[in-house]
């Protein structure tokens, strides 16, 4: 099929609008054997922190009716080990690369950006302002002022465009989005998983983030609201399992999308999803995604 799935994202061309979300692609090495690289526009690393993080005690992931709850707790090797052990092979991949960074404190975001700044093969940095699995009282993404500050300070030292990843657990996403824009964010990613709680065995609690199908209608609504107040590119994330889900995200105002939980179930999903997307376009008589330019403002 002569159908072109490529999209322009912050001045770069993604082969498809499908990004692999942070936390479900590891540092990319373990997922690569399952991937058709042509089906993926960009890959996002697990969120990297300044210090290595052990993560939360198990259990860390469980299926509940209709969703998945994870409480990984940002387990990662820390930025130094990441640079030493993983970055070189990541940078050899054909798709665009997004490095997700997470600070325990506000000041750590610019530090992380600075440490990564010399590796120009990185295409974008994503600021994880919204991890639900930390001990903090509030997420950064729940405090517009804090988002603004973090982004502003990171922007100063980052040679890479910045994507701010937001949380659904806010009263007004528009406020947060506007603060990020004011701080200098180049794009927004909506949404991270939703903070929740379950009991997985007699009285045993798991606090974590909900992901999977129910996030889609939530994310669509937040994207629609956000689209009304900003023309920043938006990455739509949450509950994408099929090509048709991506169409809905475009209709709501997203410019590209990212796949999370589906990769846990089906690590080879991107190829299927890209194929479905092509079929949908073909059957509607389109040969590229530019038919959505009106809704996305591209």
């Amino acid at each position: 099929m002569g159908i072109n799935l490529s999209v322009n994202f912050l001045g770069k061309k993604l082969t498809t609008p499908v990004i692999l979300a942070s936390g479900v692609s590891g540092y990319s090495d373990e997922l690569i054997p399952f991937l058709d690289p042509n089906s993926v526009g960009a890959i996002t690393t697990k969120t990297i922190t300044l210090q290595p993080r052990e993560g939360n005690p198990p259990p860390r992931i469980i299926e509940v009716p209709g969703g998945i709850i994870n409480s990984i707790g940002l387990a990662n090797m820390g930025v130094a080990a990441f640079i030493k052990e993983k970055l070189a092979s990541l940078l050899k991949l054909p798709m665009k690369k997004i490095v997700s960074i997470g600070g325990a404190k506000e000041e750590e975001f610019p530090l992380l950006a600075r440490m990564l700044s010399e590796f120009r093969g990185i295409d974008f940095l994503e600021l994880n302002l919204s991890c639900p699995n930390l001990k903090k009282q509030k997420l950064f993404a729940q405090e517009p002022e804090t988002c603004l500050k973090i982004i502003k300070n990171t922007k100063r030292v980052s040679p890479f465009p910045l994507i701010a990843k937001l949380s659904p657990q806010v009263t007004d996403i528009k406020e947060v989005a506007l603060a990020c824009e004011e701080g200098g964010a180049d794009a927004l990613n909506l949404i991270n998983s939703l903070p929740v709680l379950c009991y997985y065995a007699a009285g045993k609690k798991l606090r974590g983030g909900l992901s999977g199908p129910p996030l889609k209608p939530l994310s669509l609504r937040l994207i629609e609201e956000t689209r009304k107040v900003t023309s920043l590119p938006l990455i739509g994330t949450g509950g994408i399992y099929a090509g048709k889900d991506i169409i809905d995200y475009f209709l709501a105002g997203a410019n590209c999308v990212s796949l999370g939980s589906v990769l846990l179930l089906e690590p080879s999903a991107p190829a299927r999803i890209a194929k479905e997307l092509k079929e949908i376009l073909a059957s509607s008589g389109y040969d590229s995604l530019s038919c959505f330019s009106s809704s996305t403002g591209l």
Partner: protein
Amino acid sequence: MEWNLTITGNTPLNPSHFLLELQVPSSFPPPRPGQFVHIRIGEPPCFLLRRPFSIFSFQSKKRRIEVFYRIVGRGTKALSQKKKEEKINLLGPLGTPFNWDTGTVPLLVGGGRGIAPLHFLYQEMKKTGIEPYVLFGFKNAEDTVFRERFSPEKFLLSTEDGSAGEKGKVTDVLKKHIPYFQGKINKIFSCGAKEMLQEIHLIAKKEKFACEVSFEQFMGCGIGICQGCVVKTKQGYKRICREGPVFNADEIAWE
């Protein structure tokens, strides 16, 4: 590593335990004991994560693998309702297997459905001329499946309610028989609940037996990506789906 296999059997052994048999193609890598498969139970939104199961046996000639499972929740329930001839999607074989060599004189200690990887281990050890001692513990007589597959003179059975074999927890029965095993065996292989594995490790340490244990933990991807399935070791958390499920018990940071 991703396969669509045909179900050649899915047989109830008692109301809660089933034996699933699957036809594998010749390209399916011969699995090793301790490895597991990650089974896709159904489609979203019904089922969103796969379910991990040890390989219970591998018949290389007939190209069949078997999975022995217990119904504990929604996923295993749905699995039990699948019919012969239906297709099933799985990832595998996954994980790091048990280790032994010609000098190993093994005792396999399993509890409940934890016997699954040990059954496969038994079969493969016998192929290399090793005849392991076996001690299996169950809740009650109804659960004591497959006992006829093990040589009676090296097979010990216990049930918690005493309705078959010796009465008691499998670890207590092991302790009782330690004098018998002393000087005979040199390595314990075990699979079951974490508390049981910890007790077995204590016994093994005291007796200076080597000890390998296979863990269960809730899993996401099953292929090392999500960090969902860890166990605490002396070198920090390790992934059960990748560095495990089999670990040298000395490595584990027991609580």
